[in-house]
């Protein structure tokens, strides 16, 4: 199916991406082309087919609920673009 510009803007917002006005036309065309490729799936009847989410027929392995990780707060927070007093900093959310 063909998408229009406003639909592409909506998808971009859901994905927290920004599509500029200059890109919008090309992005829309490309995504429409890809959806046409995907739509080839609709040519087969799959009414009675069970969906397959995962290639192997296995049960999720469980483990005992115990602490296995050490606290690595400092080394992990060193990677952050902005942090202070053990907290991650982001632009102000509440006034």
């Amino acid at each position, binding site marked *: 199916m063909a998408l229009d510009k406003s639909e592409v803007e909506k998808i971009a917002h859901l994905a927290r991406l920004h599509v500029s006005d200059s890109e919008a036309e090309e992005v829309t065309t490309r*995504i429409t082309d890809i959806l046409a490729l995907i739509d080839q*799936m609709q040519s*087969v009847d*799959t009414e009675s087919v069970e*969906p397959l989410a*995962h290639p*192997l027929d296995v049960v999720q392995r469980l483990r005992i609920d115990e602490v296995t990780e050490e606290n690595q707060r400092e*080394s992990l927070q060193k990677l952050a673009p902005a942090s202070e007093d053990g907290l991650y900093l982001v632009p102000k959310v509440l006034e």
Partner: protein
Amino acid sequence: MINSTVAEIAAALKAGDISSVEITQAYLNRIAKLNGELNAFITVCEESALEQAAAADAARSAGNTSPLLGIPIAHKDIFCTKDILTTCGSRMLHNFVSPYNATVVERFNDAGTVLLGKTNMDEFAMGSSNETSFFGDVKNPWNTECVPGGSSGGSAAAVAADLCAMATGTDTGGSIRQPAAFCGITGFKPSYGRVSRWGMIAFASSLDQAGPITKSAEDAALMLNAMAGLDEKDSTSIDRPAEDFTASLNQPLKGLRIGVPKQHFAEGLSMEVEKAVRAALAEYEKLGAIIKEVDLTNSHLSVSAYYVVAPAEASANLSRFDGVRYGYRCEDPVDLEDMYKRTRSEGFGEEVKRRIMIGTYALSAGYYDAYYRKAQKIRRLIKEDFDRAFAEVDVIIGPTSPHTAFKLGSKSDPVSMYLEDIYTIAVNLAGLPAASIPVGMANGMPMGMQIIGAYFDEAKILNVAHQFQQHTDWHKQKPGPIASSEGEA
């Protein structure tokens, strides 16, 4: 020695003919000479490599006999490496120095390998040409105007050009096998769950699998011995008894049943590739194998189903890149939403953003049944095709790619790039193991043959590949323009 196989280098190290420091230095020299042209490495770890090599030599003197001890390796930049830059080919992670090692990296460290560096790749492993990397295109060592394939293009080019003895790759839709075919080397994607995905940056979690990129099937078996096995940290890792994948390499192929899918020899396949794969099948018949046609009825739907499943999973996996905890953050965000949107729009490249949007769309309210659920149903049909085929044959053989490596910049629309993986994608949807090995040359460029096995039949595939390599020398061909010169160790 740098153009030797892992098995040969291991024997020379064991015999004391060469030290790990010597062979490591030889690869570092080769990288210094050729990486500027090939762009196969994003990061070269010169200092730590020589330290690891010295430690390996010392361990050998102290009696350590690990088969991969002292062998120089390169890891695809999708594997987290402690204290070493890990970019996944993206601006989003251009400054990410990992605080931990991926399980695969840890296992190779335990085996005593020497890490030469991190190889270039398509951004977040999304691509079939290595042209989506933030760090620039990788060039094919056979012809630097051509792509090396992708997404493990840096690893494949590095192995083909003798910049390392062996390399790791990952394969979500063909990302080990297609570059192996384009670069004239051996690439192997194990069964889903065979190798731990922990610390391997996620693209599509129900498809991703790590594997070896090597100069021979025997080397792939040696690497797989180190890589495979249960990892408690990956809940999809499979608990199976440890196997020695080299044990059955020399088994005779008499009576082997080879399935040939007619769908993989249909329209779109180049004449040269068809001829080469048919000649290989004739070689197998000479070795006593029986050829049977098999029907993978739904294989033409694999690309369309994949481009729902993979982007859907990617859109969820890549939501973690938000500019808060690590990686890139945009300049001067005005508010939180502006920070998310600009960080992601500036940090991700075009192809990654396209796939995130496709996935977001396929999973959004009102479209889930028509896209994601439909794709999962097709996925079952594809798996059932393979189940039926493997009831009659031991392995399935066909081309890896419809043609040889194409020119850089020649495929500008995404759909034609997606169709590059037409023979490899179904294997990932079904979770099966498969290899690509060199099968011939056309116009100076290598071609690959794909060998697909039943679940956990890695040893059988490696046996079938190794026997071919015992009777042919396609895997010994070296890229002419940059062939290893004499005197380089």
